[in-house]
């Protein structure tokens, strides 16, 4: 028994030190410089948000949304809730449409917005239109 103790002692001593080393919140200090890429990405996202906002504020789009029974303010609030990736995808889609407020363009924009609003609310579990959306657990 004594022999066991005398060998165990240095081992446990070693293990105790090892544990301290492992669990001490020691941070490797890494430079956290903000890069040009980060700046450019941040700019792209805020540009996209501003752009979607400006489209939503257009009179023809507003009128078409109201005609479809959609509250413009609510639509705007819901697009605000979209993630960066989602808003970039929508802005890309809107931007690639032919310019000039033709009726065709307005229809596409409105269907895009209706789709976004309904899909997002589906994901959030407020509505249940798209069967493929897995609902957020309440």
């Amino acid at each position, binding site marked *: 028994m004594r022999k066991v103790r005398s060998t165990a002692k240095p081992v446990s001593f070693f293990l105790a030190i090892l544990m301290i080393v492992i669990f001490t919140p020691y941070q490797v200090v890494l430079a*956290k410089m*903000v890069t040009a890429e*980060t*700046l*450019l990405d941040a*700019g792209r996202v805020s540009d996209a948000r501003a752009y979607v906002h400006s489209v939503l504020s257009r009179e023809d789009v507003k009128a078409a949304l109201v005609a479809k029974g959609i509250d413009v303010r609510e639509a705007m609030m819901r697009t605000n809730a979209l993630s960066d990736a*989602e808003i970039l*995808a929508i802005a890309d889609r809107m931007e*690639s449409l032919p310019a000039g407020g033709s009726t065709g363009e307005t229809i596409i924009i409105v269907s895009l917005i209706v789709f976004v609003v309904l899909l997002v609310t589906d994901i959030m579990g407020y509505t249940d239109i798209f069967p493929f959306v897995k609902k957020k657990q309440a």
Partner: protein
Amino acid sequence: MSGLGWFLLILALCSAIAGCGRSTGINWSSPSRDLEKSYLLNDIPFFPQVESQCGPAALAMALVWSGVPVSPDDLASEVFTPSRKGSLQSAMIGAARRHDRIAYGLSEPEALIDEVAAGNPVIVLQNLGLSWYQVWHYAVVIGLDLAKGNVILHSGTTPHKEISLTVFERTWARSDYWGLLVLPPHRLPANAKEKEYLLAVSHLERLGRWDIAADGYTTALSRWPDSLPAAVGLGVCLYRRGDLAAAEAHFRDATVKFPHEGVVYNNLAQVLIDRGNKAEARQAVLTAIEIGGPLKADYERTLEEIQNR
């Protein structure tokens, strides 16, 4: 599939439907351009392609023109995908960067004229076949003869190949007018857009090519002296390559030039703490936090780091 996955999928479907009505056609005869003129770049080397390796050949022409001594053989392993008997566009872009060159995509088809007029060769992707029988091909545009209505290409096994604008436009349109400039870091595209150019430079920064990226940012600053991302990018490159004194001076100047941008104070703080100047570093990052903005969380992390030292 996640909600976002479905979202993007359906968005893609929407775009496929809406995309059909897209009007095409290049406006070759814009009033700002001199129609009578013809442009021919005489300093573009020609490499004939072997088998289906038009990608390596086209890229080699552009790279050698830009001052990188390579042969299509050297590039084949970097860009050619044997199973597809071709070279992907992303591989072409990646290879240009691996050879320390700035890969800049043509922003619009009409820019081709400006680039050639400015002496920059453009790699273009054409579909020489039809939409249902695809023959993809890379060629280098080396000249334009607008009076005769011709484009001059280094293409395949033919140097100085002249084809009519109409045919060229049709074959080029099928790649959605994909065009690529391969430029040394001191040369701006004729049609350079600030954000696109800086993004192209930042990819070199990510590859760890600090010197080349620094040159690119310097070039950008000569064109857009008030560009914050360019100033930040140059400072970060100086810092990354270990030139702390220069980086400190650079960010100090930047705080004078951009006194309302937190990011320059944050980066200055980082340089200062690395140089052992804790008191000033703290002061700088506190200024950054006070200014705030979308990157405030990053500044707070810097402060935490400074206090842990």
